[in-house]
């Protein structure tokens, strides 16, 4: 028996079977690749979450420790001692380590402390049990004024994101729907500025901020970031997908450009606006160097500056840093989960990768 495919071609039962197998194989392969990709992407996050509950030693161990553990302690004659697995006269026993003397250790039987054994430390294996150190979050939180940093980050992220979206709407609309002399050149000029590395602009921007008296103020952290070329580009691409006929009809009904923008273009562009807001929010939330250079007071600083509290020139407190990073990332994950549908639509429709 033959069936007609969606493209109008005839397919026999055998052909359909081959097609089904091919399709299934291809899908299996695609899902395998995607699953592997997702696992690779998730691995650092899994390490971050796991490390946030470890000790520093566990965090630095190679090969990596995925499940945090702790040394089992036993009480021997009123003293807490670490428990080890050792071999005594061919028998594996669990003994407590009383003291170290060079390469040897003095071990005692917790059940009978009068039994003591001098054994090589190298042969003793520690007895451990699973333990996630939740207290790392408390220690990390108290190592810097994170309450203030979170408030600042939230305030700056919301204001710069909203500001960025609003200014981008106006500029993008002009570039997408209006005609004026030099429009394309001006747009290319805007796009061209995206190629200038931010570090190059840091010194002249610092001088400007100093000269207008904005050093160590919220204005310095907000105003320069409420215009975004990326945002203009993103929204322009989206606005261009809105048919011009809509504006023609609106014009016939006496609609002004401003009203058309706010009552038609903006509601139709919700996915792109949400996407831009998210991008701006993440960018602002992670902003470090600008905040550090443009401010003096600790009260003006943000979460990424706080994450510095765990690094030194000779090492990093990875367990605490990961606990702080988990806390720092939580608002972004939450925001993404809330706006996920709009975000995916926005990315898909604007051709962003």
């Amino acid at each position, binding site marked *: 028996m033959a069936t007609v495919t969606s493209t109008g071609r005839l397919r026999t039962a055998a052909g359909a079977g081959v097609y089904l197998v091919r399709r299934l194989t291809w899908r299996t392969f695609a899902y395998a690749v995607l699953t592997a990709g997702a696992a690779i992407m998730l691995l650092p996050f899994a390490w971050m979450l796991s490390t946030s509950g470890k000790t520093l*030693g566990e965090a630095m161990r190679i090969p990596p420790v995925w499940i945090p553990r702790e040394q089992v302690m036993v009480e021997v004659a009123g003293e807490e001692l670490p428990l080890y697995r050792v071999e005594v006269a061919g028998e594996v026993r669990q003994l407590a380590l009383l003291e170290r003397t060079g390469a040897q250790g003095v071990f005692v039987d917790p059940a009978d402390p009068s039994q003591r054994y001098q054994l090589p430390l*190298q042969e003793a294996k520690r007895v451990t049990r699973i333990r996630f150190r939740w207290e790392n979050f408390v220690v990390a939180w108290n190592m810097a004024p994170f309450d203030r940093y979170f408030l600042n980050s939230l305030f700056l992220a919301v204001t710069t994101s909203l500001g960025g979206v609003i200014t981008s709407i106006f500029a993008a609309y002009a570039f997408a729907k209006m005609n004026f002399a030099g429009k394309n050149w001006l747009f290319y000029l805007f796009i061209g500025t995206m190629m200038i590395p931010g570090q190059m602009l840091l010194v002249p921007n610092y001088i400007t901020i*100093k000269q207008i008296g904005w050093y160590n103020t919220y204005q310095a952290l907000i105003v320069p970031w409420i215009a975004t070329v990326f945002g203009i580009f993103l929204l322009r691409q989206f606005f261009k997908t809105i048919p011009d006929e809509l504006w023609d009809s609106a014009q016939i009904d006496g609609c002004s450009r401003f009203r058309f923008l706010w009552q038609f273009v903006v509601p139709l562009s919700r996915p792109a606006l949400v996407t831009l807001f998210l991008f701006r929010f993440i960018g602002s939330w992670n902003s470090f160097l600008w905040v550090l*250079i443009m401010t003096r007071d600790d009260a003006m600083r943000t979460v990424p500056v706080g994450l510095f509290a765990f*690094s*030194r*020139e*000779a090492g990093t407190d990875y367990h605490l840093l990961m606990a702080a990073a988990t806390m720092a990332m939580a608002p972004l994950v939450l925001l993404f989960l809330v706006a996920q549908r709009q975000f995916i639509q926005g990315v898909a429709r604007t051709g962003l990768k």
Partner: protein
Amino acid sequence: MKSVVLLTLVVGISALGLAQVEIEFWHAMMGGHLETLEMITARFMEENPDITVNLVFKGGYGDLNMALIAAVAAGDPPTMAQFYTDWVAAAYQPALLPLDGLIPEDVLNDIPEALLRACIFDGTLLTIPFNKSTLILYYNTALVPEPPTTWEELREMAAALTVDEDGDGTPERFGFGLRPYPEMFTFLFWQAGGQFFNEDMTECTINTEAGVQALNFLLQLKEVSLFQRGFLSGPFGAGRIAMYIGSVAGIPFVARAAEDGGVSWNTAVLPKGPVNNDSIYMGTDVGIFAMGSTPEERAAAVRYINFLLSPWAHLEWAKGTGYIPFRHSVITSAEWQAYLAEDPTRVAVTEQAFHGFSYPIHREFFSIRGVWGEMLEYVLLGEMTPEEALEWAVSVINEEYLGG
């Protein structure tokens, strides 16, 4: 009468207000280091109520340098800051206040000459040592009862302690841990009697017997070493390596990793090379900006620096941060000796503090050091022989940075 008292009070308070000087100190200290600095600064302000010191954290060293470049370009730097020697030579020398005559002679004579030499630019004292560290040997006392005292002993012990029980070619335990960074070459080169440059610093002179000796020794060590780019305190604390050479600033990390891994450890002075057992002085210095500051601010900053160098502050700084104490009178004081009795891991640090050298001053030193690091990697990764690598490094440095 009441109004007279009130007027006197107002005038008095205003006068006090006018005399108040506020200075800003840009630094890169965080965590426990910052707490110690804050504690010392609070004591200074208590003793000098007319001065307020604002400690301003400016991120890591790279961020601090960028912030300083921007501030100097704007003509408005802070009163004081931390500096690496090569930053001063490259960017800040004309903007800094000469400190000659502002720091008491007896204090300067109390500091190792090699350390102070890195603060003198074209004959002028511009900075003062601040958070200085040096390299020491960390060793697992369960495996190494007596630390090695010479290169040869270190090599032999490391070989003997490297264990590959299952014979798969990857030892379960390494005798040594090796992290490739320029100082691993430079201190060995110095210990072999090498000089980095000729006298007028127009030529790099590492392509000598001392250079070959240092690189060959590292190649031999690598055979019995865990070779990795990350910090070694982790594998050391887990008992995976028996010894390694690292900065004293790593002591708190080693302590925690070793406690966690149940490893007993201590520190020792560096094993002696063919000529000496000197270590490299690392870390930053502090200086005062003449640019953009008032005479009152400069005077206040000088008072603050002298306070930082005072025996009490210097002792607290060394104790609280783990950086090396560098005033001879402080190291020999009863307080410091009492502290050493409490913490034996600092005994070697104290001894090593007076056996050190500083890099020569050159405005391109950051890049030159980078070439040394690249050279070391070429050798350790087997891409060049020691002789080839030394010749390559010298030609690059002479042509690109020393104007040859």
